[in-house]
């Protein structure tokens, strides 16, 4: 089933970490295999923020084996060495969990694709997000569990999107969890509710064009699809409109960039979305109760129609 939620404050910042946690927790009945946040925090914009993992959170009942922390340490060490080789200086380092890290990097990135490829060539390492504002945090469990684990409730920023996942066609693990980073574009993230039926065909085409997939989750296709469109010069909105026919299946998805938030709904309108829009706030989610967690008063909401694409700026 899955639930998605997003909000954008226009002209001001707010406690988006706490707000999104409330929205996603309201949707936990739609799935709590994993929960993910894409938070666009207030930063000075000087350094890149890289969220990455050096291992998986192996949940209870999984046939996978939890790796020893020493393995993570070794991978982290190689990441640090690789960054140093590329001339990147780690300004700040946080290791929330043994397998999950956050680096602030002082580095004049000329080619984010090459940078990412070098980091991800290290076995077991995956960049969850890269940007000057975006931070993708995702892990197993419901919204509150993930929020508490990563102390997200105090994050202040302008906008955010998130996902409460009920795993159906790929594993219960972090790499299959949403949001997906729009690799290799700085500050682009995607969450999706639905099912894409031309995933493999599109994946083969996009991989032949040099795009990268990290999971076998169909939703990742949206991030890669949009990234490829933008790489070829399309605007975000143009890419999203193309996706209405380029992607087959049922979907409602959100995409966020450094300064915008967009939604797209397939031509069959098979997946739910409720939207609230005012001059200073746009909030949307799979169900109205998500919006009610940040706006408990009586408000006017509506369902976007089939084939609708909307983009808002901060």
């Amino acid at each position, binding site marked *: 089933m899955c639930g998605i939620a997003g909000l954008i404050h226009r002209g001001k910042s707010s406690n988006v970490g706490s707000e999104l946690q409330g929205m996603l927790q309201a949707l936990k009945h739609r799935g709590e295999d994993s929960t993910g946040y894409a938070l666009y925090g207030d930063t000075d914009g000087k350094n890149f923020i890289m969220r990455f993992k050096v291992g998986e959170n192996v949940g209870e009942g999984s046939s996978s084996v939890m790796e020893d922390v020493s393995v993570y340490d070794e991978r982290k060490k190689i990441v640090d060495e690789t960054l140093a080789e590329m001339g990147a200086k780690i300004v700040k380092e946080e290791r929330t969990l043994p397998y999950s890290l956050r680096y602030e990097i002082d580095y004049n990135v000329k080619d984010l694709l090459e940078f990412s490829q070098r980091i991800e060539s290290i076995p077991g390492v995956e960049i969850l997000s890269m940007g000057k504002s975006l931070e993708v945090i995702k892990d197993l469990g419901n919204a509150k569990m993930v929020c508490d684990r990563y102390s997200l409730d105090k994050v202040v920023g302008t906008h955010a999107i998130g996902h409460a996942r009920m795993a159906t066609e790929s594993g219960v693990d972090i790499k299959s969890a949403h949001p997906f980073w729009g690799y290799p574009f700085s500050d682009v993230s995607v969450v999706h509710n639905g099912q894409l039926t031309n995933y493999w065909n599109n994946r083969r085409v996009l991989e032949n064009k040099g795009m990268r997939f990290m999971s076998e989750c169909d939703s990742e296709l949206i991030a890669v699809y949009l990234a490829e469109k933008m790489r070829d010069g399309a605007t975000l909105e143009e890419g999203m409109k193309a996706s209405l026919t380029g992607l087959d299946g049922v979907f409602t998805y959100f995409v966020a960039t450094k300064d915008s938030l967009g939604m797209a709904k397939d031509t069959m*309108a098979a997946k739910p979305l409720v939207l609230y829009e005012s001059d200073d706030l746009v909030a949307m989610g799979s169900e109205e109760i998500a919006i009610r967690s940040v706006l408990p008063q009586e408000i*006017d909401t509506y*369902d976007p129609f089939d084939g609708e694409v909307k983009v808002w700026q901060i």
Partner: protein
Amino acid sequence: MANLKTVSKKSKAQSMGMHTEVLTGRTQQKFFNPDEAENFYYFGTYDVDFNKRTELDVKDMTAPEANKEIDNLMSQGYGTIVIKNPQGKHSLGVGILNKLNLIFEGSLGYFGMGSCDGPIVRINGRVGWSCAENLMAGKVVIEKNAGSCFGAAIRGGDLICKGSVGARTGIDMKGGTIIIGGDAGAFTGFMMQRGRIIILGDVGINLGDSMYDGTIFVGGEIGSYGSDAVDAELTKSDQDWLKRKLKVAEIGENFDVSKMKKIVAGKKLWNYDNLEPTEKKGAI
């Protein structure tokens, strides 16, 4: 309402507006004698007094708790209940088989007023997906917008949305009337079997896709017709009915119904021969 005693059996359901085709052969329709109405009752229904009014704040209640309390109030004879702070909760007001005036001061989430038979409901807000699914009788009025699958599989009653609705409005409906003051999304009337849908605004793609029967009236633009949905002549009788219905619904009273489009099933997609599968097999 038609006089059931004087109308021939063949056209009883037709005269009630339930369908347009002439049924032949085997049918599972049951015709009840109105004189025996007191013999037909639901278990767990109550005698209520519409003048006995109360309010219920459900802000801190779960949906089951709220529904249980509504039932409890009906058992005490309250015939008018005002629900405060529904706050988009799902499944509020489901399964009410009573005559009741129910007023929601706010919006409902999914499945609001599902499987009801008899209540008169006013929702001073918005509703989420599948509002009034399987409504059998009564009237539900929504003052703002509604989500997708509005009035899915309703069998009777009037379902009115003064704003716009999402996709698949009236999917699989088997009777009753759905009235939309604004626009409607894709696949409106998808696989509908009987009943009527009135849309005063525009409607999305695939209108009436694979409909078996029933009638759709559209006041605005149509995105596209679905499979087997075809235009039909808007008769004087249709216009009179539309005027009456819109007046009763307190919506679009001054709307020029003469310019509405009427869409019905082309009846090319299905075979209504009334044979059971085993009988078909024998015939082959």
